[in-house]
């Protein structure tokens, strides 16, 4: 009699815990899926933000280059050392040191006769290229 009561009690506990376990499992699974979806959304947002920042930095540098036509002056006007070919920016797009850099703007120039082509490339600190912009200028020599 006592044994039968114990069996019944054990069966009752099992029948109680199985749906509870399934319920907890489903909840954990759905939570994991949702966390994954949110993580994906965060990743896409970060990508969009980096692209916007990259475009802004390149466009700014290209406009300065258009007004000067000289890479050395462009670097100086952007706040770097005159003649420097790489500028580091933080998340707020303020000039910083390479140690605290989020973005690296690389300036390069190719001169072909009177055509000066400035290329501006923004990479993340990790080295992933974000955006590149090339601005070609016709700058005839003075007196020509």
């Amino acid at each position: 009699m006592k044994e039968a009561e114990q069996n019944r009690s054990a069966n009752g506990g099992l029948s109680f815990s199985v749906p509870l376990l399934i319920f907890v499992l489903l909840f954990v699974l759905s939570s994991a899926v949702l966390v994954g979806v949110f993580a994906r959304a965060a990743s896409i947002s970060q990508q969009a933000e980096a692209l916007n920042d990259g475009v802004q930095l390149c466009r700014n540098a290209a406009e300065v280059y258009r007004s000067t036509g000289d890479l050395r002056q462009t670097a100086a006007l952007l706040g770097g050392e005159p003649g420097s070919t790489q500028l580091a920016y933080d998340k707020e797009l303020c000039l910083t040191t390479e140690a605290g850099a989020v973005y690296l703007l690389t300036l390069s120039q190719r001169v072909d006769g009177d055509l000066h082509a400035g290329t501006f490339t923004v990479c993340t600190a990790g080295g992933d290229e974000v955006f590149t912009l090339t601005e070609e200028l016709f700058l005839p020599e003075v007196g020509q």
Partner: protein
Amino acid sequence: MNRKRFRIGSVAILFAVIVLCVAIFAVLTVVTARSDLRTAEQYSAHVQAIGRCRSEANRWLAQMDALIVSGSLSPENLPANTRLEGSQISASLHAGNVTLTARLELLPGNTYRITRWTVTTDWEEDLGGDWLRP
């Protein structure tokens, strides 16, 4: 017999509603993020198109400068998309949906003056409807 029974029905419904709400928020977050990325990509493509158009126009100007300064300007050796009308030389250069219209005025002594240098964008109204597109 005094057995306690735990009812998980109401708790399950509550959690299901919570999970459903969070799932809706998650989908909306992804849709918004994708929309932001698409806008950023369109903007970057537009900026690159303007850069390409300006670069092409500068190359065209270099060609025209060489022809004018050397005195060898004639309708036969004009670059493509270039028109010579009297003392006016004009060209329309395209890159993507961006058009740069340039015009030069020939002056005596194999010199010239730039009289027009305008960038315009062909724009079409985005009526939406494809906001779920990846």
